[in-house]
């Protein structure tokens, strides 16, 4: 019987000295103990372990029982007595065993789990883990760090619940687990706080560093990808709570404000090599970006921050983080970047951001990233949001800043829709200049002409694809029409009249040519398609299109004709505006000549 075997080995070891325990004894003990558990004799095993006489044996050999113990706990049902016994055994082991060995046993157990078992196991073993770590007294820093690292490593592969339903269900137990881990870390945080008030011992710097590492990891997972807005119907949002708890820890260990304003720190005195600092900074980029989001968008921990910083400075500090977030493609991360950018911009007054800020590389990179989101992101609400943020960004700059930004985006966006949008902005700025008492030198005169060189042209001359560029071309024509109407030739404040010859040559003439060519081409296509319809449907498709693994059906002739006709319609539209513009020019020139 299992219990007898156990008793046998116990009796043998009772008379031995601790130093005389052999490998064989350890094995026998483990096998016997395991068998007891599997055969359902948990109660008896508990008695053996609780027996004072067996204290030394348990201290040395107990940790080997962790694995079978955990297995049993998960097999038994909640109400089962045997489960209670097992839990008590676990508790006893935590009290009695050699802390170092038991620690390894517990961590090994956690490392071996995966998938659905992970959170269950972690939740079970956090309490004994904490007991063991507290027993380590002054040498605990490394072990605490190791434990937290192992736990976080096991959690990281788990998917983060995102929708309200997923959070409420918490299928894998991640939400529960996160909260439990923070609770687990509490006594260590308290220890660091207490020791900070006394003179610092070398060891406490280590413990603080380990807690800091844990916080940084949590910011990356799960917080970076978690959904952190208030949700209707959920009283206590588990991730919002977790975020608050992490920030509280950072505040308690006095790392919150320094982390958020990391670049304000001088060279860290602990690092000989600036390279190390730079590498660390790169690895922690995601965590720091998430932290800024938590503070400035969700206002977690914002009470601890000075309310003195100038809004331009806050934007400058956050640009690196915004860039990091906008480069990602997951909705959860991207939307945080957009929210952070928006919240920084909303703190500023219009026209208050000095153009010199564009000398910072991220101030040029970020709007370009924004354009990528606007044009490439598959999620419509994010595309719309990034467009509104781009407009906000433009609005905050002073005149020279707007000017420089327009130039930059016209050159780099490579997207007709964006270019059209920028050109409309330019028109608005010119309008403000012409109607204000003091006009800006940036949107009139020779600066404007230089900008118009980028606007009033066809990128590939007469061969430009007018359809693809129609947004941009329409915007340019509208701008030109506006200039011609608003600016008298005698005034010539915008300088457009002096540049007219150039505009005709680079823009208007090639546009005529292009329109004629395109119309002819499409009319020929329509004729062909109509003729082909009379013939039987040929099954020789030259090419096919596959989207998401599904082959798209070939376009019917009707659909093809529809597309071709709508193209013609676009050309007509362009042509009519072009005609109107040229008419206006002629009228004005004639009026000018008559005046003379």
């Amino acid at each position, binding site marked *: 019987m299992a219990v007898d075997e156990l008793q046998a080995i116990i009796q043998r070891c009772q008379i031995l000295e601790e130093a005389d325990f052999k490998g064989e004894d350890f094995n026998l003990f483990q096998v016997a103990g395991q068998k007891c558990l599997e055969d359902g004799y948990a109660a008896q095993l508990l008695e053996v372990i609780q027996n004072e006489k067996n204290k030394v044996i348990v201290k040395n050999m107990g940790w080997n029982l962790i694995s079978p113990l955990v297995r049993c706990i998960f097999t038994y049902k909640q109400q089962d007595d045997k489960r209670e016994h097992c839990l008590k055994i676990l508790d006893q082991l935590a009290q009695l065993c050699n802390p170092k060995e038991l620690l390894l046993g517990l961590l090994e157990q956690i490392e071996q789990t995966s998938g659905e078992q992970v959170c269950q196991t972690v939740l079970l073993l956090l309490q004994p883990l904490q007991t063991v770590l507290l027993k380590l007294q002054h040498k605990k820093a490394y072990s605490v760090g190791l434990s937290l690292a192992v736990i976080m490593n096991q959690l990281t592969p788990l998917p983060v619940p995102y929708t309200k339903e997923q959070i409420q269900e918490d299928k894998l137990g991640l939400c529960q687990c996160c909260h439990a881990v923070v609770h687990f870390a509490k006594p260590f945080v308290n220890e660091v706080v207490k020791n900070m008030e006394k003179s610092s011992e070398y060891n406490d710097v280590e413990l603080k560093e380990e807690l800091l590492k844990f916080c940084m990891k949590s910011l990356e997972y799960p917080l970076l990808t978690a959904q952190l807005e208030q949700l209707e119907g959920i009283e206590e949002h588990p991730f919002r709570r977790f975020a608050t708890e992490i920030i509280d820890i950072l505040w308690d260990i006095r790392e919150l404000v320094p982390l958020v304003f990391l670049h304000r720190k001088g060279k860290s005195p602990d690092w000989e090599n600036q390279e190390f600092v730079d590498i660390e900074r790169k690895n922690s980029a995601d965590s720091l970006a998430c932290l800024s989001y938590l503070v400035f968008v969700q206002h977690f921990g914002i009470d601890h921050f*000075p*309310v003195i*910083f100038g*809004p331009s400075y806050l934007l400058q500090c956050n640009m690196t983080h915004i860039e990091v977030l906008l480069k990602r493609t997951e909705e959860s991360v991207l939307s945080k970047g957009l929210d952070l950018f928006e919240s920084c911009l909303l*703190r500023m007054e219009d026209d208050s951001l*000095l153009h010199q800020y564009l000398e910072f590389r991220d101030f040029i990179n970020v709007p370009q990233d924004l354009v990528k989101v606007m044009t490439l992101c598959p999620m419509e609400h994010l595309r719309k949001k990034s467009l509104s943020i781009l407009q906000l960004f433009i609005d905050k700059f002073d005149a020279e800043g707007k000017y420089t930004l327009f130039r930059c985006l016209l050159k780099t966006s490579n997207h007709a829709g964006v270019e059209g949008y920028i050109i409309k902005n330019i028109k608005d700025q010119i309008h403000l200049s012409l109607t204000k008492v003091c006009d800006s030198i940036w949107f009139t005169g020779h600066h404007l002409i230089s900008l118009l060189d980028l606007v009033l042209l066809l990128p590939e001359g007469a061969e430009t694809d007018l359809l693809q560029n129609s947004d941009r071309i329409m915007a340019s024509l509208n701008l030109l029409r506006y200039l011609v109407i608003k600016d008298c030739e005698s005034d010539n404040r915008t300088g457009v009249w002096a540049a007219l010859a150039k505009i005709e040559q680079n823009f208007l003439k090639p546009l005529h040519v292009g329109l004629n060519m395109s119309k002819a081409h499409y009319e020929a296509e329509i004729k062909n398609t109509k003729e082909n319809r009379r013939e039987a449907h040929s099954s020789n498709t030259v090419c096919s299109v596959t989207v998401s693994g599904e082959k798209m059906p070939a376009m019917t002739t009707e659909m093809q004709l529809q597309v071709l006709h709508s193209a013609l319609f676009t050309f007509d539209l362009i042509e009519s505006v072009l005609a109107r513009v040229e008419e206006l020019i002629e009228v004005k020139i004639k009026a000018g000549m008559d005046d003379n």
Partner: protein
Amino acid sequence: EVQAAALAEHGEDITPARDRGVLKIIKRPGSEDESPMIGDKVYVHYKGKLANGKKFDSSRDRNEPFVFSLGKGQVIKAWDIGVATMKKGEICYLLCKPEYAYGSAGSAPKIPSNATLFFEASEDLFEDGGIIRRIKRKGEGYSNPNEGATVEIRLEGFCGSTRFDCRDVKFVVGEGEDHDIPIGIDKALEKMQRGEHCILYLGPRYGFGEGGKPKYGIQPNAELVYEVTLKSFEKAKESWEMDTKEKLEQAAIVKEKGTMYFKEGKYLQAVIQYGKIVSWLEMEYGLSEKESKASDSFLLAAFLNLAMCYLKLREYTKAVECCDKALGLDQDNEKGLYRRGEARLLMNEFELAKCDFQKVLEVNPQNKAAKSQISVCQKKTKEHNERDRRIYANMFTKFAERDAK
């Protein structure tokens, strides 16, 4: 406590535009005469309230002063303007209109739109903005010019966007002043390598300082930018390369130079010159009796003069150290005792200062200055005791009241 209303009525308008956007009342004037300059790192304790009296921020809640670089737009406009007018140790009140604070945007979540802000601020200390060096083209080799090295450089000096200086010049490091070159360049050269081309951003303290440079049209306390190329240099002899005879000869020359700089108020340059004497002679061994006497005499003069310079530079701890060294050579030296007393007085160590001044009187009973300094010490000691008494008196009353409840 001064209310916002009092500020609105009696406060001084410190805005450059004179639009009453930032009003100030001094609660307690500073102990020093200097205000921080652009680029200086400033440490401030403060409390901020909204118009309705609600506190929105306090550095004391964080148990540490707020630190920032002045005049760089890191803080709201009212602070860049206000803190620049504060002297070290000053406490003042500031009333700030929204145009100089957070404007119509406010600052979520604590500051609403169009909020007028009220601050009580005390300036703890500030550190000079120093020298920032950006290397455009790296130099070669590993050695740098040392103090006293002869360098050939090309420099271009800019103030704002105006270039005021452009030339090739050869001079001795530490004596750039003789060629209208600010001390920041001398200091930076010691870190540069042969062939290096760099840009130097000099805070006013390392530029032309309070005197400005009328010759170049530079205003006082201006920030300067220099582009410097170190074409070549020849290192000055290290201390161990010179024999005692050479050192004593050079000491005489260097002492004169130092005195000349001192008379012109160029204290940083004077410190460099006197410092050479110390580094050459302080650890010199194997001197004959005659040499020993000469060396001690130079060292004594150097320490005493260094103490004077440090007093002028407000580096009081260093002044005390130099006096200690001087008194180590001559324990009853009147100047040494007096200057140490001065330094200690300025560090608020009144008892120690009084001791020094009393010793001065023992050495020279006719020293009137020492007599008056002693009464200054006594007066300050009394003032401080009064203040402490008031603070502690209230504290005990408060405890007693609390215990009684």
